[in-house]
């Protein structure tokens, strides 16, 4: 790979978009540089399940031709984006990280990726993920885990682990993920990048293979706050094909990202998101971030959200219940894997046993149990009540503060294999992120440094009321600027995993 190519992969999405629009560099050069980076590093990072080389170069060429004709270019023209393999991409294989969809090529396109294309972005390929978005490490992928660019022996988080790793490894400046219980924020935090879960309903779920329908939210990942806001803007907005999508203007996230300023804001630290199970280095970096916010002029107060501790059990009832139903369609009759012989009933059962991994099976059975007559009220019904209480906790909190903050996840990246067969330990990674999914509000993770004990990234989670996504970027931009200036360089420059 050329030095110029390497330089291109270090640029921000904003810089690349500007350079391509100005004609300083061609979209093809930019795409090729990133394809080269993938070729050089992905054998170790394993972020991608499918690299769409020909399609990407064709898209890049089309951008260059458009520019040459003097036509106006989309906001992300020529910018390479990696897409989580949960999004249906027409003509491009989509596996959702599962063997049961090995070889499936969707005949239609998701709304969010269609908006990417309409913005003239270049889709580099599909990234690895925990099977059907269930997991916090990508170890539940049917195709092997991805590796954290900071330390290849560690997980990149999940379920959008591939998307986070791709960005952290400079294979793409931007990526798309989905967040159901923390699946964008947690990988972003443990990979040292920015990741946002938009307000639920703020970005369309049409074409996003469903895990937990009432919680799933497509969202952006990037190496810095402004880039992430740019992608957030492009993918968001009402979609008539999604009945749960909100018909309201996209909050001014790019504007907010350009004007990070917390003076006069009141910021609440959630009391319950701390304590046992939280790594000391995570807590110390978090405390530091809170001090920085104070120094920047924010008023910081403690806020109690007493029902947050029931968030994890409620989530692990609601999500499996919805997924047990959402995954029923994978039965070998119409698409995907078909295994076994005998009757339709037998083939369905054999196919599903062969195609789904252990976590998927656990959650399907858990969900089936929670919805069974006789158990519904005590489990699923109760969980939905807890959901109401968590929403009320947030409403009460937001009546006092503009945003809430907490660590994004209790620990830094753990070892590959460490929690793989201990589901309960794995679930703890979502402690901080789950409440926002249950309530549907907006939240993001922004890197605030490295944990002293192991030099691994720590993320600060910022939470805002529904449709106040711009507040997230305002706070995150201020934090990022403060830390970058302290450090003198972007955090990722310190990532040693790939021998940077």
């Amino acid at each position: 790979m050329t030095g110029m190519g390497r330089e291109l992969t270090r640029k921000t999405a904003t810089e690349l978009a500007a350079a391509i629009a100005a004609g300083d560099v061609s979209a093809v050069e930019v795409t090729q540089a990133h394809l080269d980076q993938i070729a050089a590093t992905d054998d170790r990072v394993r972020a991608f399940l499918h690299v769409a080389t020909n399609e990407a170069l064709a898209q890049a060429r089309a951008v260059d031709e458009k520019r040459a004709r003097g036509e106006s270019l989309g906001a992300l023209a020529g910018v390479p984006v990696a897409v989580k393999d949960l999004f249906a991409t027409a003509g491009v294989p989509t596996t959702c990280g599962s063997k049961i969809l090995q070889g499936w090529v969707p005949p239609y396109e998701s709304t969010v990726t269609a908006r990417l294309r309409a913005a003239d972005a270049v889709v580099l390929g599909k990234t690895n993920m925990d099977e059907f978005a269930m997991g916090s490490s990508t170890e539940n992928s049917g195709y092997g885990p991805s590796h954290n660019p900071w330390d290849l022996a560690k997980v990149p988080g999940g379920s959008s682990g591939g998307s986070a790793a791709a960005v952290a490894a400079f294979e793409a400046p931007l990526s798309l993920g989905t967040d159901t219980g923390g699946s964008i924020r947690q990988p972003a935090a443990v990979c040292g990048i920015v990741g946002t879960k938009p307000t639920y309903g703020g970005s369309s779920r049409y074409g996003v293979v469903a895990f937990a329908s009432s919680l799933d939210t497509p969202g952006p990942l990037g190496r810095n706050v402004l880039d992430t806001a740019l992608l957030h803007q492009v993918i968001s907005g009402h979609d008539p094909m999604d009945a749960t999508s909100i018909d309201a203007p996209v909050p001014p996230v790019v504007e907010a990202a350009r004007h990070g300023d917390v003076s006069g804001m009141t910021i609440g630290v959630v009391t319950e998101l701390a304590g046992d199970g939280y790594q000391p280095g995570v807590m110390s970096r978090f405390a530091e971030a809170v001090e920085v916010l104070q120094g920047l002029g924010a008023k910081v107060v403690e806020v109690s959200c007493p029902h947050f501790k029931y968030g994890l059990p409620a989530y692990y009832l609601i999500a499996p219940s919805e997924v047990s139903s959402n995954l029923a369609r994978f039965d070998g009759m119409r698409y995907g894997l078909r295994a076994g012989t005998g009757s339709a009933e037998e083939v369905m059962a054999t196919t599903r046993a062969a195609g789904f991994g252990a976590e998927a099976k656990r959650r399907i059975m858990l969900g089936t149990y929670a919805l069974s007559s006789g158990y519904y009220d005590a489990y699923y019904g109760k969980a939905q009540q807890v959901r109401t209480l968590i929403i009320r906790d947030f409403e009460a909190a937001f009546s006092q503060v503009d945003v809430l903050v907490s660590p994004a996840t209790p620990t830094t990246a753990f070892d590959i294999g460490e929690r793989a067969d201990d589901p309960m330990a794995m679930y703890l990674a979502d402690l901080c992120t789950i409440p926002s999914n249950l309530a549907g509000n907006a939240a993001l993770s922004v890197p605030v440094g490295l944990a002293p004990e192991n030099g691994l990234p720590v993320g600060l989670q910022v939470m805002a009321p529904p449709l106040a996504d711009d507040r997230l970027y305002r706070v995150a931009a201020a934090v990022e600027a403060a830390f970058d200036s302290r450090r003198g360089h972007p955090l990722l420059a310190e990532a040693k995993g790939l021998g940077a």
Partner: protein
Amino acid sequence: MITRDDIAHLARLSRLALSDEELDHLAPQLDQIISSVAQVQEVAAEGIPATSHATGLTNVFRDDEPRPCLTPSEALSGAPAVELQRFKVPRILVEEG
């Protein structure tokens, strides 16, 4: 406490042909998870309504207007088996509907 037989029943309900080893392995894990999520029952929720949809939206409709659909070949493109332009599926044992 959820037994291995309960798990086997759930597996049948969800059309998962699990092996004995899998059942042995998954049963205690599921038992542990179920005991843990049962925590939600601790919450005093008298008179608290359940939330099934967080956005508060209602009445989202579409007009009764035709939209383009898939061609038969697109519709059948992923099918493991096709005959007479239909999805060919193995013999169905239990009559439904």
